[in-house]
């Protein structure tokens, strides 16, 4: 079908193909630029988990893992370059940690047959696995997040939000715009009044936005921010004395980096959480023994236990479990990206499994299927304690409002399928 004109590669860069069998996990990280504060802990956590598997278990199923790091600086063009540079090395799954790069990679991974895992970010309608065969966004996505935030507010208000004013402060990009449609739908259902306030990249200047909030006096503010925008927003909210417990960020606006600069002013700030916080899990003892104490930690090794480190750690755990699943399905230890896809599509995370991994109750229990690449869509609420300088989980797993979200997912994914001439079908394994 595809005409191959190129037969020889002049490129010395690409010439070296891996001889040793290993499981390659590209890490499209950003340790530089305005979003580095979020990129560094995630990349460290991602790399450390695989180092731990190599050191403790000798890889996954006897095959060593290799993390290929490539710096994107949160820039889509560099993201493309990284993707092209690493895809030839047998990369199993891409996790770009950037919604912009995700949109870029979705058509490419579908064409190249390499899975893309966008955990809690990226294109929400990718949850429809029949249209997006190679894209996964379990355990939860943006629209789940928006719904979870509203559910939490409903719970606080005795199930009634009618007449309340809610403002959404969002990063003026694909990422920040994602929740708007869901919040609008939900406002129709629950009767609250929604205003949206955009903050342009990178978000260091938000005086006018918070002036508007001060004038409009919303009952609640929901934030979809990332990088330096989060710190500035929390500082500004503290400056106008906005009640912090009425300020809820998405899971990308809830790390230590975001609240520490505001000091005591940030006390009581809430955010969503897709996994548990802290380092009080048995696996961290192993991490200390095998990785930290032997000096094999990625980066400076000072991020262990922070929210975003845990997220990278969690992302790596999900990837490693998908590899195990793929090895089990295909009976081969050295798997290909296509096998990895099958493993991800059949992934099942249970309480017992997390217990066994030394991460009890770390994330939600969920199962992935061909129709549903989005997982359970559950999240928790965490709150910042400025005196103890730690995040506390204040709720149990909250289910998102699937009645509202599922039709949106189907509509958006079917529109994508129609635009790109895709016949929705499960990928044959």
């Amino acid at each position, binding site marked *: 079908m595809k005409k191959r004109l190129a037969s020889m590669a002049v490129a010395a860069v690409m010439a070296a193909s891996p001889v040793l069998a290993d499981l390659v996990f590209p890490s499209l990280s950003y340790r530089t630029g305005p979003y580095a504060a979020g990129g560094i802990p995630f990349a460290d956590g991602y790399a450390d988990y695989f180092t731990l598997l190599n050191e403790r278990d000798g890889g996954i199923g006897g095959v060593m893992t290799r993390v290929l790091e490539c710096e994107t600086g949160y820039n889509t063009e560099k993201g493309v370059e990284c993707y092209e540079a690493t895809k030839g090395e047998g990369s199993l799954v891409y996790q770009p940690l950037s919604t912009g790069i995700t*949109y870029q990679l979705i058509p490419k991974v579908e064409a190249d047959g390499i899975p893309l895992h966008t955990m809690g970010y990226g294109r929400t309608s990718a949850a429809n696995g029949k249209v997006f065969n190679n894209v996964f966004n379990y355990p939860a996505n943006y629209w789940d997040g928006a719904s979870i935030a509203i559910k939490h507010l409903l719970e606080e208000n005795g199930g009634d939000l009618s007449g309340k004013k809610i403002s959404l402060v969002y990063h003026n990009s694909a990422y920040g715009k994602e929740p708007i449609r869901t919040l609008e739908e939900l406002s129709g259902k629950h009767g609250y009044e929604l205003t949206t306030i955009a903050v342009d990249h990178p978000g260091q200047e938000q005086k006018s936005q918070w002036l508007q909030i001060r004038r409009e006096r919303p009952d609640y503010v929901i934030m979809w921010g990332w990088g330096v925008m989060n710190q500035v927003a929390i500082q500004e909210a503290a400056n106008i004395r906005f009640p912090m417990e009425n300020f809820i960020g998405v899971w990308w606006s809830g790390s230590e980096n975001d609240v520490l600069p505001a000091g005591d002013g940030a006390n009581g700030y809430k955010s969503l959480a897709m996994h548990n916080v802290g380092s009080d899990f048995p696996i961290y003892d192993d991490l200390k023994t095998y990785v930290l104490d032997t000096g094999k930690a990625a980066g400076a090794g000072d991020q262990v236990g922070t929210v975003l480190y845990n997220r990278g750690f969690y992302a790596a755990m999900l990837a490693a479990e998908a590899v195990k699943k793929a090895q089990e399905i295909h009976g081969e230890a050295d798997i290909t990206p296509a096998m990895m896809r099958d493993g991800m599509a059949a992934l099942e995370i249970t309480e017992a499994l997390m217990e066994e991994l030394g991460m009890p109750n770390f994330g939600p229990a969920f199962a992935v299927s061909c129709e549903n690449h989005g997982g359970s869509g559950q999240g928790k609420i965490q709150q910042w304690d400025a005196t103890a300088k730690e995040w506390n989980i204040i709720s149990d797993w909250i289910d998102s409002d699937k009645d509202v979200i599922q039709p949106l997912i189907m509509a958006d994914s079917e529109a994508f399928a129609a635009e790109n001439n895709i016949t929705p079908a499960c990928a044959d394994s």
Partner: protein
Amino acid sequence: MFYREAGDFKTSYVDDSQTFPIAFDRYRYYFVLVIAFGIIPFIINDYWANAVMVPFLIYAIAAIGLNILTGYCGQVSLGTGGFMAVGGYACYKLMTAFPDVSIMVHLLLAGFITAGVGVLFGLPSLRIKGFYLAVATLAAQFFLVWLFNKVPWFYNYSASGQISAPERFVFGVPVTGPNVEAWAKYMVCLVFVTFCAWLARNLTRGTIGRSWMAIRDMDIAAEIIGVNPLKAKLTAFAVSSFFIGIAGALLFAVYLGAVEVGEVYGINKSFLVLFMIIIGGLGSIFGAFAGAAFMVLLPVALKNILVGGLGWDTALATHFEFVIVGALIVLFLIAEPHGLAQLWKLAKEKLRLWPFPH
């Protein structure tokens, strides 16, 4: 020795006024074309296309465009990113509104639409000059990006505000969308680069180009000898925006496939293209290519050397990349303030005298 006019007799006016009057230059030009059209498409792979060649060619078009405005007509513009956005969004709207029309037509039309917008934002140049004009075009940059972010019609009301290119074909070969072969991508860009460079080269040699340069060198004198500043400046804005629009459309449709206006067409793009023409050399088509090559290839090359070759930590390598690229820019400009094009000119001058320099 071999690079000289002597012995190269011209017997017609056409021969006398050709673009490359020196035989050696002409052969070099044909040689480059043969390599670009006849050899590279057969050996190019995904990495070389996506990381090196396609961005280089696209930025070369943008740099030619800005060079016409800034280098030839002397009007400083910081609105390049905004005009590229116009090209990209025009192309997207055309692609989705008229799916049956060829993408090549859409790319050209995107150029024409951008030319119109460029003329509109060029109007202030009749009253203001220099830094003041730079600020006015800066306003265009911010206004256009804001517009494409704010008005949902431009992104067809998609939930994320992203635009993504649907699959389109040229002669039955996909050139946009997910299933594009590296060579197809490369060829589309190459055809446009060749066309644009040829057009720009010939425009700048003719009447219009001379009136631009007259305005650049001294606008009052130009007016006195009968150059119409309105016509000269607005044609410069139109032609420059036409090229920049095509570059923006290619960047979106062929290279990236999905675009978010603030990130891809932000102020950084304006500066990047401006740096390209300053480093390459103002008022030179070759300079546009040299500058684009310098700014696109150097970071990729450094990254491959530092991370791939020396095995450095990626963050450290990126920081050093900034340092090295920055230092090289400063060094180049100290050594040759007129850019790489001037170095090339000097080299040719030396070649002409070789082996008997005085």
